[in-house]
């Protein structure tokens, strides 16, 4: 017989399955009816008797059906569904254990999902453009600098355009921030992409209206034009269908709208407004042109390697021809999204996330292994009986696998759901806060890859949790397992594997718990503490001034002009703001109270001072303080009283002045108490006030006044000692503007602030407007981290408790007979239980000891202040807590053990 025919016939039968069942039924029914008929006719029996005989001679119908099913090779399907139903019933029967297991694994799955989703998006993003994988970026790496030393020269662009065959449509862009001003609406700050026309051709997205940029627009002297994105079109022009030709003001210049891009278009990074890139290489000295980013598209048929080879050749030629600028540059071409990836912060984050996830999964795996090991150990007898009755090994393993699959499947579903929600939230936060930093192709969400990964995890989990223990249990002889049910009691020994597992689990729990507690405590304290002053009344923003135009990026030569202009504009803005009703105070500073700009502080020992010299002398690492430059009115605006000395006066802001003010924490921590006035201090690194940068010494400053601290620490880890310089107007850019608003919520003034700023000068730009309240509470990343740690800890504790419960349960069940006998002989219940639990309690104690040691070491190395009394107390509390968990877990089994009647225990004999 041809195997083709056979296979075809088999396949046909396989896929006709639902049909088959009824067909088999019908055939059997027909057969039995015919046989009944025959018996009636031939032997004259009545119908009922004939039918009975027919059935008897036919044999068991169900058995035949099963044989047929097995012959078809589909028996395992029905068996599987039966096992799944059994598994579900088992899950429901032990709700506590199941809940703990499912939740614990679900947390791990959720975290795995999120990290996988994030990593997948960040590491291997796909550009959602036509043939997006062929869009590339080209950059010059500086071989001398190991960090981000990229400088893509304007002049190289022309060279590359000429010589690089493998890449077509080479273009470039740079981003500038400007005010977007339309007469009717409020001004806002946008990040404009100045781009060559080829950028639109590379993206291959046709405009919604009008046209996009072309080479004509790039000419110097061409009329200023702008292409706007869909959102700008809707919000600024109300979707006007005749928007082409209307005017839009960017900064100080007017532009004509020539096109609208469709919704979702944000090439090159996350931009909504595009103007032509008008940088002529001949205007600049080679090596000192503005930085631009170069991109292109691989020519049809070209590969990345070919492009790199050509590029390297060009680079070598350039290095030979212009050694003074190009000797150390190594050009390279890479897929476009990768150009954003190589920043060191991202790589660090990626590794950190991976580490955390692996640790977590190991932890959870350990926990679940304990749970399951315990469960399987109690069922060796049942497994032996089934095997003896004829169940094949495959069937037994299959059943245990199905049970485990139900557990892990439930966990996977819950975890996937939670992970999806988290990813969505992450995406929303990124879109809101990241703004221009998050590229348009990075969207965090569930991809088919993630779902597959989770499904794989679930199956793998079920294999580990169900199949492996079952395989081990069915490996031995049947009678060994049967003995378990008999008088000999259990021969299953809780070996070293189990001991190690329990100890490890307890140790890790003890190690993690203190950190989680500290973290949550900090977060709660921070949340509930509040800043101590009415932060909701303050509106903060950063004031930028655009220094537009051609020229070098290094503003050294025009520094003083810019500073003067900035100072004038600031002054004008402050005047107008103060004139506004509802504004109680306007104050400028180098940074907000929540910003941390701390430097190492050096104290001059020569100015004789009484008091202990605990601060570091010149050169020693010692204390740090936040350094700010503030206006004289700063302290009054925040209601900070002066404690000693004098406030800032006009003279303090002049270039040679040396007066500084410190706060009380500074006196206590940096100066070690004692008399502060007249002491001289300086920040150890280069002083930003003077622009001649010597890395070592700056001038000494004399303390002329002491103010109180901000009423409560504004952030848990912001250094409280502060050093205030008098601000030189115009020298600090950008400057932090704080308004105290009376009579209305501070946030309502934001629009007016922008209007006033633009009215003073369109080149003045307001960024990051928010109330001080929001700024102080905005530790979004911290909050997420804390939440994750809390969840992880909770799941770990749950699983830990469940594992210990299982352990205790096992330990007691193992020694039922012994307990019964000893109780019968008159031993007190306490002693009996104590001896039984002693082993388990020992394991827990070892685990606690290990965990405490590990935490202690971690605290020692990581914490800045070393181990203090508070930490020790916390550690002890955690240890006691774990012991308490262990004891609590033991209560149930212990009570069961106490209720064992001696007769019952002995009955087995």
């Amino acid at each position: 017989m041809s195997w083709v025919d056979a296979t075809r016939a088999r396949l046909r039968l396989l896929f006709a399955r639902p049909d088959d069942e009824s067909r088999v039924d019908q055939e059997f029914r027909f057969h039995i009816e015919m046989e009944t008929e025959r018996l009636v006719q031939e032997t004259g029996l009545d119908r009922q008797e004939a039918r009975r005989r027919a059935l008897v001679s036919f044999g068991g119908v169900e058995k035949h059906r099963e044989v047929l099913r097995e012959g078809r090779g589909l028996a395992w399907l029905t068996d599987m569904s039966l096992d799944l139903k059994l598994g579900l019933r088992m899950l429901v029967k032990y709700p506590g254990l199941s809940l703990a297991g499912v939740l614990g694994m679900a947390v791990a799955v959720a975290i795995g999902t999120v990290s996988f989703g994030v990593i997948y998006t960040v590491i291997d993003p796909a550009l959602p453009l036509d043939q997006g994988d062929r869009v590339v970026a080209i950059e010059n790496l500086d071989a001398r600098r190991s960090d981000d030393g990229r400088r893509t020269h304007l002049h190289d662009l022309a060279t590359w355009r000429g010589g690089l065959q493998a890449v077509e449509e080479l273009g470039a862009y740079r981003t500038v921030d400007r005010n977007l001003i339309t007469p009717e609406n409020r001004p806002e700050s946008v990040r404009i992409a100045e781009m060559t026309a080829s950028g639109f051709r590379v993206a291959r997205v046709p405009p919604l209206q009008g046209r996009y940029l072309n080479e004509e627009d790039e000419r110097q002297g061409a009329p200023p034009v702008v292409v706007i994105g869909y959102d700008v079109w809707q919000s600024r022009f109300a979707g006007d269908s005749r928007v082409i030709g209307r005017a839009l003001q960017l900064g100080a210049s007017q532009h004509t709208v020539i096109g609208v891009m469709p919704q979702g278009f944000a090439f090159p990074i996350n931009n909504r407004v595009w103007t032509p890139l008008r940088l002529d290489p001949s205007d600049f000295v080679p090596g000192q042109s503005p930085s631009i980013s170069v991109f292109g598209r691989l020519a049809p048929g070209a590969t990345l390697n070919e492009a790199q080879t050509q590029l390297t050749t060009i680079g070598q030629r350039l290095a030979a021809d212009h050694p003074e600028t190009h000797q150390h540059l190594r050009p390279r071409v890479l897929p476009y999204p990768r150009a954003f990836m190589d920043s060191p912060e991202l790589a660090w984050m990626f590794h950190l996330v991976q580490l955390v996830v692996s640790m977590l999964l190991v932890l959870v795996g350990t926990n679940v292994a304990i749970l399951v090991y315990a469960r399987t150990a109690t069922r060796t007898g049942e497994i032996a009986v089934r095997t003896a009755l004829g169940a094949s090994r495959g069937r037994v393993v299959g059943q245990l696998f199905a049970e485990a699959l139900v557990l892990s499947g439930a966990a996977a579903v819950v975890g996937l759901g939670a992970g999806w929600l988290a990813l969505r939230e992450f995406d929303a936060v990124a879109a809101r806060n990241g703004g221009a930093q998050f590229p348009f192709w990075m969207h965090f969400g569930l991809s088919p890859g993630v779902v597959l990964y989770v499904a794989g995890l679930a199956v793998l989990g079920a294999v580990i949790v169900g199949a492996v223990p079952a395989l081990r249990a069915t490996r031995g002889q049947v009678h060994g397992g049967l003995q378990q049910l008999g008088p000999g009691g259990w021969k299953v020994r809780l070996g070293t594997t189990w001991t190690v597992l329990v100890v490890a689990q307890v140790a890790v729990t003890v190690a993690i718990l203190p950190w989680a507690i500290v973290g949550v405590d900090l977060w709660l304290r921070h949340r509930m503490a509040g800043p101590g002053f009415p932060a909701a009344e303050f509106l903060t923003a950063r004031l930028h001034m655009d220094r537009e135009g051609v020229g070098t990026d290094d503003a050294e030569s025009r520094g003083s002009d810019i500073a003067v202009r900035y100072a004038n504009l600031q002054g004008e803005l402050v005047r107008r703001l103060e004139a506004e009703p509802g504004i109680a105070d306007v104050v400028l500073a180098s940074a907000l109270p929540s910003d941390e700009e701390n430097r190492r502080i050096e104290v001059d020992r020569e100015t004789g001072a009484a008091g202990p010299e605990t601060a570091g002398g010149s050169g020693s690492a010692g204390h740090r303080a936040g350094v700010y430059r503030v206006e004289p009115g700063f302290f009054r605006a925040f209601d900070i009283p002066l404690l000693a000395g004098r406030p800032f006066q006009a003279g303090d802001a002049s270039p040679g002045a040396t007066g500084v003010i410190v706060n009380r924490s500074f006196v206590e921590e940096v100066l070690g108490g004692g008399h502060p006035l007249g002491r001289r201090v300086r920040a150890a690194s280069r002083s930003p006030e003077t622009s001649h940068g010597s890395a070592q010494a700056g001038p000494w400053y004399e303390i002329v006044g002491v103010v109180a601290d901000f009423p409560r620490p504004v952030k848990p880890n912001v250094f409280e000692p502060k050093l205030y310089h008098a601000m030189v107007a115009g020298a600090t850019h950008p400057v932090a503007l704080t308004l105290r608003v009376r009579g209305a919520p501070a946030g309502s003034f934001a629009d007016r602030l922008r209007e006033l700023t633009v009215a003073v000068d369109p080149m003045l730009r307001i960024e990051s407007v928010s109330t001080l309240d929001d700024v102080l509470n905005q530790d979004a990343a911290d909050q997420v981290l804390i939440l994750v740690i809390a969840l992880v800890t909770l799941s770990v504790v749950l699983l830990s408790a469940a594992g210990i419960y299982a352990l205790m349960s096992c330990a007691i069940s193992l020694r039922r007979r012994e307990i019964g006998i000893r109780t019968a002989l008159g031993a007190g219940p306490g002693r009996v239980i104590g001896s039984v639990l002693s082993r388990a309690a020992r394991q827990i104690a070892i685990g606690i000891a290990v965990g405490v040691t590990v935490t202690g070491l971690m605290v020692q190395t990581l914490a800045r202040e070393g181990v203090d009394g508070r930490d020790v107390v916390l550690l002890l509390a955690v240890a006691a807590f774990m012991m308490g968990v262990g004891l609590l877990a033991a209560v149930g089994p212990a009570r069961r053990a106490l209720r064992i009647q001696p007769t019952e225990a002995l009955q087995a004999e």
Partner: protein
Amino acid sequence: MAPRAQTDALRGSLDLLILKTLSLAPMHGWGISQRVQQMSAGVLEVNQGSLYPALQRLEQGGLITSDWGTTGNNRRARYYRLTAAGRRALGNELENWRRFAASLNAVLRST
């Protein structure tokens, strides 16, 4: 091919009986068992328990096919019939059987 777990001879002879019966005319399962009984004058009684598995096995092997049909008294039954491959196999099996029987006879007859 389906695994032959039980004694080869028994299974083989049942297959042979079925194939031979079907070579005469297409028939349903009950009919096959009745026909065999008739043709052997009551000596061979087909075990119901093995009949249908054998039919399924032969169908999976592609030697027979089945279809719904109606009996004489208007009942719905599943009719089996030989395929070309089945006819070929029947020929082979008959040949094997004859050779086997002959050699067995020869051994038994020699003294």
